[in-house]
C-alpha cells in the first residue's frame, strides 16, 4: 500500500519512573495500520501489548511517560500522550468494569453523541440505532437497562456501540473476547469484521490468543518483553514463523487440527521488565540460541515480502522442520 497509513507508530516506548530506577516495559515499537486493515498484537501477559495500546490511545497511567511518535493520518501532528486522539475509540476486556454501572446503557451510548452537539432526543434515537447496528435484540427496551442486567456478550456489544458513537476510523480492542464464551466470542468477532467492512474502519486488536487473531486480523505483530519480535501478514507469520518465539507459541497451543501432538511449550519464564537481558530478549529461552544473539539490538529485519523478524537466525526454525505446517 503506497498511500499514507491511517496510524503510524514510530519508536514507541513507555517509561515508568525516572533516573536509574526507570524501567521500559515497552521499547522501540513501530508499526502502521492502513485504512480498513486489522492489525493484531499478540503476546503473553507482561509482554507490553496492552501498555502499547494504551500508549497509542493516550491512556497511560499516571507516572508513565511515552516516547516516540504516534500519528493519525487525518492530522499531521503527533498525538498527545495523555489525551484521547480524534478518530480513535477503544473497547476493553471486561465490559463490566469498563461500563459505568450507574448509567443506563442507552445514556452511556448516547453520551458521545450529546457531546457532538445532538439534542437529547436525537442522541437517544441515535444510541438505539447504534445498539441495533451491533446486534442488540430489542434495542429500544435494552437502552433502559443497567449494565449489570445484561449478559457479558451484550455488555461487550454495548461497549462497541458506545465506541462507534464517536465515529472512529480506528478501533482499539484490548482482549475484547477473552472473558466471553466461545460461541459469543465467535459472534463478537464476526460483528467486528462486519463493522470494519461496513464502516471502512480499521482495527488494532490486542490478544493473547493466536487463533483469535489468526481468524480476525490481516496482519499480526508478535510482542515479547516489550518489543516486537515479528510482524507480517497473519498467514505468513502463523504458518511460516521466522522467529523462535512465534514458533514456540504456535506449538504451545493445543491444536484443533492435530490433537495428538505433544505440546512443546516454552522453557523458562518471560524476563522481569526491570532486568531485560541484553541482546535478544528471547535468547535465554530460545532453543536455537547462538553466541551472537546477545549482541543484537532487537531491531526488525526483512524476512520476506511485508514480513519482518527480530531474529538474526530465522533459518534455524526452518531447519528444525517446524516451519512447515
Amino acid at each position, binding site marked *: 500500500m503506497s498511500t499514507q497509513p491511517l496510524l503510524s507508530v514510530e519508536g514507541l516506548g513507555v517509561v515508568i519512573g525516572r533516573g536509574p530506577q526507570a524501567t521500559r516495559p515497552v521499547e522501540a515499537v513501530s508499526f502502521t495500520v492502513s485504512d480498513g486493515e486489522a492489525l493484531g498484537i499478540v503476546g503473553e501477559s507482561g509482554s507490553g501489548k496492552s501498555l502499547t495500546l494504551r500508549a497509542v490511545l493516550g491512556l497511560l497511567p499516571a507516572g508513565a511517560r511515552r516516547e516516540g511518535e504516534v500519528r493519525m493520518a487525518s492530522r499531521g501532528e503527533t498525538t498527545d500522550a495523555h489525551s484521547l486522539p480524534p478518530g480513535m475509540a477503544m473497547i476493553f476486556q471486561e465490559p463490566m468494569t469498563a461500563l459505568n454501572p450507574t448509567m443506563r446503557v442507552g445514556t452511556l451510548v448516547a453520551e458521545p453523541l450529546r457531546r457532538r452537539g445532538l439534542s437529547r432526543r436525537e442522541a437517544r434515537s441515535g444510541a438505539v440505532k447504534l445498539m441495533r447496528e451491533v446486534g442488540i435484540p430489542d434495542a429500544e427496551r435494552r437502552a433502559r437497562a443497567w449494565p449489570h442486567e445484561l449478559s457479558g456478550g451484550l455488555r461487550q456489544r454495548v461497549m462497541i456501540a458506545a465506541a462507534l458513537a464517536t465515529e472512529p476510523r480506528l478501533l482499539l480492542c484490548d482482549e475484547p473476547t477473552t472473558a466471553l464464551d466461545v460461541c459469543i466470542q465467535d459472534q463478537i468477532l464476526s460483528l467486528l469484521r462486519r463493522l470494519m467492512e461496513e464502516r471502512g474502519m480499521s482495527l488494532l486488536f490486542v490478544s493473547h490468543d493466536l487463533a483469535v487473531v489468526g*481468524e480476525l486480523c490481516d496482519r499480526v505483530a508478535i510482542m515479547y518483553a516489550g518489543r516486537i519480535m515479528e510482524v507480517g501478514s497473519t498467514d505468513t507469520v502463523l504458518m511460516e514463523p521466522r522467529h523462535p518465539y512465534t514458533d514456540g507459541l504456535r506449538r504451545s497451543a493445543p491444536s484443533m487440527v492435530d490433537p495428538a501432538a505433544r505440546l512443546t511449550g516454552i522453557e523458562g519464564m518471560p524476563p522481569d521488565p526491570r532486568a531485560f537481558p541484553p541482546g535478544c530478549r528471547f535468547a535465554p529461552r530460545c532453543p536455537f540460541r547462538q553466541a551472537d544473539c546477545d549482541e543484537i539490538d532487537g531491531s526488525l529485519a526483512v524476512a520476506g515480502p511485508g514480513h519482518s523478524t527480530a531474529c538474526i537466525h530465522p533459518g534455524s526454525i526452518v531447519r528444525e522442520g517446524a516451519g512447515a505446517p
Partner: protein
Amino acid sequence: MSLLEVKDLTVRFALESPLQARLAGHRRQVVTAVDDISFSVERGGSLGIVGESGCGKSTLARVIVGLVAPSAGEVRLGDVEVGARRDRATRRRIQMVFQDPGSSLNPARTVGRTLAELLRVHSMVPSGEVERRCEELLDLVQLPASVLKVRPQRLSGGQRQRVAIARALALEPEILIADEAVAALDVSVQASILNLLADLRASLGLTLIFISHDLAVVRHISERVIVMYLGRIVESSPTARLFEDPRHPYSRALIAAAPQLGLIRAPALSGEPTSPLDLPPGCRFEPRCPISEDVCRQVEPALIEFSGCSVACHVAQRRDGATHPRTGAS
C-alpha cells in the same frame, strides 16, 4: 466396575430474592444448575467436561468433590455412596485443582507449611518424614525444593498452579478434578501444565476429570468428552468421535465456533443461552438450534446411547435410527 459413578444427579439453588418479594409472599426462584445427570468414569480414565458459563460444569465438579450437596441423585465412588459429608479417608480420594491458584492458596503461608499441614492432618506419612515428602511432592510437579520456603505471591501463575497440583496430590487421590485449571495461564505455561497432568495421570494411575470451556484443551487431554448445556448432558462421546462427527447441533456449533486460522464465516450460533429460570418446555437448546423441529418445542429429548456415544437430540437420534422411548407426554 467404574471408579466413579454419577447417577441422576440434580442440584438446585434457591436464588436470593428482594425483601419486598419475600414479604409479598412470592416464592423464591429456584435454578436447576445440574439437571438429572448420569455418567461414569473408569479407573485411570480421563474425562473432559465442556460447556459455556452457566452450564453447570463447575457445580457438577463441586458435587463430586463434596463441596456442594446434591438435591437429588448420588455420587458413588467404587461401591460406596459419597455425599457432601465425608470422612477424611473418603474426602482424600477425590481432590480438586481450581482455576485461580492465586486465590485458592493461602497467601499467608509458605508452600511448605500448606503442604505439611495436609500431610499431618491426614496422617499421610510419619511425622519425621513430612519434610522429605513435601520435597518429593514438589519434585513430582517439577518445582525445586526451595519453593517450600516461599509464599504463593512470590511465585508465577504457572508455579502456583503446580503448587496447587502438588497440594491435591499430597493426599494421594484416586481422582483429580481440574476445574478450568489452565484457563488463567499464558499459552506457553498452559502447555507445560497440560503435559504435567498427562504425565501424572500415566505415572500415578490417576483418574482425571478435566473441566474447561476450551475445546482444544479438552480434546488434547481427554479420552471421553461430555458436552453440557444449561445443566444437562447433550452429548457424551469418545473424544475423537466427538470432534470428527459431532451428533448434537450444540456440539457442532461449539466446535465450529472455535477460532481457526484465516477462516472468516458467519457465527456458528446466534443468540445467547436461555435463562435457566425460564426454560422452554421442550429441548433447552431449541431456541438457538438451527435444525429444530416441532417435536423439539414440545418434548425434552432424553440422552440415548447409540453405538458408544450418547446424544440428547430428537433429530440426531432419528438420523441414527436409534429407537428412543419418548419421555413425558407429547
